[in-house]
């Protein structure tokens, strides 16, 4: 799945009332505008009659499939006027979008918000290039990601699983995400890229420390899947310390670029490529592991069969991938007028290809709505199709299969606690961020102990974390960030203490703590890691002048966003 990107803030904002003129009034009235979600009003609620698929309405996150079924039957070419996109949901149509890059281009991104924002794609971000540029990069990488090479990673992947799961056998209580999904894929990518294990741990520990400082808030496990920072250092280090990893291969490879010239990759290209791979290969596989836990808990009979006959694992993983694809949709830019079902999609449109809908299309999969590991094997579209089909599909398959095997080795049976689980749906992935599970024995233990004091991971089923009171003594600032997605407004709480600054930023996406905050004269710097709708690190640098601040935030590889802020009273 695609990968990096500034969070499509618009996506997250779209679900809330965004009216800058109204907000001060609401605040004065003691109403937090973030708490008012359009979902509370009938116009946006899931309606039975009028077919309206709002990708940003959280009411659909748990079950998008019923509206997808209606789209397939009633509106195979769906036009959402409010957000200005088209969507196709039938298998044949989704396949067609992915197979014809000349009509359905990736060059403006493969995520709806990215296409709509039309900001420049960095070179080497090959998931967002069309042939021949795409082909040049892709060829370099495909050789590294062959099924054979990926299968050879099996012993290490098993070891990673064992390391994550062994300590949990005794208690019989575990979390599919925190304990496995957030760990194993990260380690595998780290190993592929050649990031020394000690450093992976250092990254891990820093992330864990962040989690500890946020005690009392829901734990944000997804942060542990991010390794974006620090790659620059590894690239330079690898130049002088070649090894047999992907980074070394990328440094050494001679390839023919789209102009036909033979050359090496530049440092910037390598950085972009490495970020794409880390971004595309972590969260998706993490979600696959979560869906494995959920679906097999719901189908204990099929789980029992797999436990007894492990040769069923590959087809079980395929069925999980079909049934709940970690990346439910991709998007394309339409380069010329094109017809679907008698209607024209005009050139210049953004078109969403609903993989999750196509995967249950009865025209392709009889009884598509049923989870059945024994169904006739037909190709699902979870890894895409055609030129951009998932580079990591062999790796993801190996990881998924081994994870299931190793889980069954230790936990033949488990229940999942969906009420304590947390499901999110972003522009790129949909799945569990927290999925607590326990064995029948552990459940007995819990009963005997009485109600367990819930850990901080407990959140409502799909409710976002409740905002906390502002930190004591905090300055409040109203900040506008000019992102490629349009202006985003947020409230900044700052606590200055000597040469450090702490605090947090509240936006309708939720609250994020400032990290690494430093003060030098009038200049404040900090970083902030957002996870929705995609994991991205923002580095802020602002100058404070009395009641005003100006500066910028660096948005991963997507350049800088200008920032302006006004201090709020009180």
């Amino acid at each position, binding site marked *: 799945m695609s990968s990096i990107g500034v969070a499509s803030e618009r996506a997250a904002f779209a679900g809330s009332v965004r009216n800058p003129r109204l907000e001060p009034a609401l605040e004065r009235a003691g109403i937090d505008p973030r708490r008012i979600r359009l979902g509370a009003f009938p116009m946006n609620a899931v309606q039975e009659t009028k077919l309206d698929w709002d990708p940003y309405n959280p009411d659909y996150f748990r079950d998008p499939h019923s509206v997808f079924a209606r789209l397939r039957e009633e509106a195979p070419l769906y036009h959402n006027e409010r957000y200005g996109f088209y969507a196709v949901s039938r298998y044949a149509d989704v396949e067609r979008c992915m197979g014809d890059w000349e009509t359905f281009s990736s060059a403006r991104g493969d995520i709806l918000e990215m296409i709509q924002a039309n900001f420049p794609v960095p070179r080497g971000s090959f998931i967002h290039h069309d042939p021949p540029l795409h082909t040049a990069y892709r060829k370099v990488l495909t050789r590294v990601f*062959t*099924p054979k090479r990926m299968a050879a990673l099996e012993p290490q992947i098993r070891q990673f699983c064992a390391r994550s799961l062994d300590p949990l056998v005794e208690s019989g209580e575990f979390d599919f995400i925190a304990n496995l999904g957030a760990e194993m894929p990260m380690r595998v990518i780290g190993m592929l890229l050649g990031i020394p294990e000690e450093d992976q741990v250092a990254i891990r520990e820093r992330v864990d420390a962040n989690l500890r400082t946020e005690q009392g808030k829901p734990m944000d496990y997804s942060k542990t899947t991010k390794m974006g920072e620090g790659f620059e250092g590894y690239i330079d280090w690898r130049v002088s310390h070649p090894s047999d990893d992907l980074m070394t291969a990328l440094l050494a490879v001679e390839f023919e670029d789209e102009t036909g010239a033979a050359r090496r990759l530049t440092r910037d290209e390598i950085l972009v490529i490495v970020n794409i791979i880390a971004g595309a290969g972590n969260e998706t596989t993490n979600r696959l592991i979560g869906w494995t836990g959920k679906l097999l808990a719901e189908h204990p009979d099929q789980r029992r069969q797999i436990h007894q006959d492990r040769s069923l694992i590959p087809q079980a993983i*395929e069925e999980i991938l079909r049934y709940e694809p970690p990346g439910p949709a991709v998007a394309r830019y339409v380069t010329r007028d094109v017809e679907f079902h008698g209607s024209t999609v005009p050139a210049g449109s953004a078109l969403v290809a609903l993989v999750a809908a196509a995967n249950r299309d009865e025209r392709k999969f009889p009884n598509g709505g049923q989870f059945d590991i024994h169904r006739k094997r037909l190709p*699902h579209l979870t890894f895409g*199709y055609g030129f951009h*089909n998932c580079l990591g*599909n062999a790796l993801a398959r190996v990881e998924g299969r081994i994870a299931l095997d190793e889980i069954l080795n230790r936990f033949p049976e488990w229940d999942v606690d969906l009420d304590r689980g947390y499901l999110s749906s972003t522009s790129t992935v949909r799945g569990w961020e927290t999925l607590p599970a326990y064995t029948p024995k552990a459940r007995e233990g819990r009963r005997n102990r009485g109600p367990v004091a819930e850990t901080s991971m407990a959140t409502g089923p799909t409710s976002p974390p409740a905002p906390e009171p502002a930190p004591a003594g905090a300055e409040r600032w109203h900040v506008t960030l000019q992102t490629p997605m349009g202006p985003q407004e947020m409230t900044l709480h700052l606590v200055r203490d000597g040469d450090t600054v702490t605090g947090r930023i509240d936006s309708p996406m939720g609250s994020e703590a400032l990290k690494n905050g430093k003060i030098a004269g009038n200049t404040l710097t900090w970083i902030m890691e957002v996870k929705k709708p995609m994991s991205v690190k923002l580095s802020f640098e602002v100058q404070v002048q009395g009641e005003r601040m100006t500066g910028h935030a660096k948005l991963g590889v997507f350049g800088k966003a200008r920032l302006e802020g006004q201090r709020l009273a009180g």
Partner: protein
Amino acid sequence: MPKITYIEFNGRKHIVDAAPGLSVMECAKQNGVPGIDADCGGGCSCGTCHVYVDPPWQARVGGRNAIEDATIEFASGVEANSRLSCQIKLTDDLDGLVVRLPESQR
């Protein structure tokens, strides 16, 4: 019914009757020919059903399509006569077809 011969990398031959309409990949799966994994189930997207078409058959079988060309990069040891077997539909015309399996799919 066309007869297809699959030759494993180790030289072992499998001669099977193919129902027209199936792909060379599906026919191998149905008849338990080892070495054709077809992870993606025939979607031309994983590169694990790579075969070498025996040269005398190349012209009749035809070359790779554009998507196949992109996907076959996943396979190792790609040659001019390499095809993804999920993309070869069997017809009576292909009666007697011989394909060899690559070393990477042992």
